[in-house]
């Protein structure tokens, strides 16, 4: 049986842990709020871009642009976005498991697979696995800016245009709410036919300099924006996951402290009872002998 001293020490240790998890939860909540604001602010641009692109694609020759062309080859690239840090529940393991699954699904045929890893956890995960990592972007999530999306996007567009990849897919955690993330895999390149714009489509559109030139500039931009958005989604999702995980940890610590406190009280009571018995017994013995 644990002595009072032992139990007291354990309670104190759990309380210390609880303090840390509670602080981490508060930090994650504050960061989540900021990340959420950013993703909400970024959505209008991304949506407008889609709309402009869709109306443009209707009028331009689609086969003209390399990013729209389907190629027969099967060199596929998967971009995996996870976090730089752990302690956020199943956030990282979900995404990494899904990406492994995806790789395995492709593995049937003669497919050349390469990876672009984003986030230190992804990089660590794939370091010891037999997969070619063509590029790694790590330790930038705490100062995430549009430039990161642009850099990754440009690199992918270059690879595609230079004919060193035939398909590019993107795997990331989509931010649903603070408590839920959804693992998403989307095809990035070649760009799939865009949805028809809603509502009236004006016929006589003037283009300066020309529809083709605008499309040429818009398509690579579109990829950058999609990556940037995925990074923001992932960041918000990460903080959401961490907040939930730390909230659970704090609650669990609370329960543990309760259980330990009861054990402590019981042990203390037992000891008092035992001491009392000893005193009474001693007194009895004295009286009997006296």
């Amino acid at each position, binding site marked *: 049986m644990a002595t009072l001293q032992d139990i007291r020490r354990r309670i104190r240790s759990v309380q210390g842990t609880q303090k840390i998890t509670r602080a981490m939860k508060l930090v994650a909540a504050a960061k989540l709020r900021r990340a959420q604001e*950013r993703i909400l*602010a*970024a959505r*209008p*641009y*991304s949506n*407008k*871009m889609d709309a*402009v692109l869709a*109306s*443009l694609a209707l009028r331009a020759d689609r086969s003209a642009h390399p990013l729209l062309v389907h190629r027969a080859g099967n060199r596929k690239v998967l971009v995996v976005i996870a976090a730089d840090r752990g302690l956020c529940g199943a956030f990282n393991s979900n995404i990494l498991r899904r990406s492994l699954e995806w790789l395995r699904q492709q593995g049937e045929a003669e497919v050349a697979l390469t990876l672009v890893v984003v986030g230190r956890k992804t990089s660590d995960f794939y370091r010891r696995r037999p997969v070619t990592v063509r590029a790694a972007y790590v330790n930038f999530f705490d100062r995430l800016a*549009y430039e990161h*999306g642009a850099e990754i996007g440009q690199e992918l567009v270059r690879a595609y245009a230079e004919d060193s990849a035939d398909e590019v897919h993107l795997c990331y955690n989509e931010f649903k709410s603070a408590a839920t993330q959804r693992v998403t895999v989307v095809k990035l390149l070649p760009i799939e036919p865009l949805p028809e714009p809603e509502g009236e489509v*004006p016929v*006589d*559109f*003037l*283009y*300066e*300099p020309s*529809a083709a*030139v*605008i499309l040429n*500039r*818009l398509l690579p931009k579109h990829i950058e*924006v999609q990556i*940037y958005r995925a990074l923001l989604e992932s960041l918000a999702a990460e903080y959401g996951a961490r907040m939930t995980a730390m909230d659970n940890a704090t609650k669990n610590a609370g329960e543990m402290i309760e259980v330990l406190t009861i054990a402590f009280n019981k042990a203390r009571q037992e000891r008092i009872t035992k001491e009392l018995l000893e005193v009474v017994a001693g007194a009895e013995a004295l009286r009997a002998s006296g």
Partner: protein
Amino acid sequence: MATAEIPRTFLLEVVTPQRLVVSEEAEEVIAPGAEGYFGVLGGHLPFMTTLKFGELTYRRTRGEERHLAVSWGYAEVLPTRVTILAEAAERAEEIDSARAEAARDRSVARLGKLGDSTVDFVRAQEALMRALTRLEVAVKKR
């Protein structure tokens, strides 16, 4: 009453990857298009162009003018809506003049001691243009 009335105003939206900068009814907007500055009034023909770095001016329904520094993007003009997708956009009152001045001085210094690399030259020149435009716009604070 035979002809449809030409809308006097349109919804102007300026968005960047970071945020929605402007979303207001406007009477007129002047923007730096690929082939020079262009002005748009309500009921304009559908029109699309790329944007250069420059100053974007718009007049709100109430009459007063607003100024923004915008860089590289697209403008989609529809009879009742103008959408500007810009890489960056700042309202005149948001521009940090001190920083823009520092950027101007930096790029001037860089242009002065550049060697033969054209790439650097173009980039430095662009940076200078950007700084100058921002300074120009910053003066037009409300």
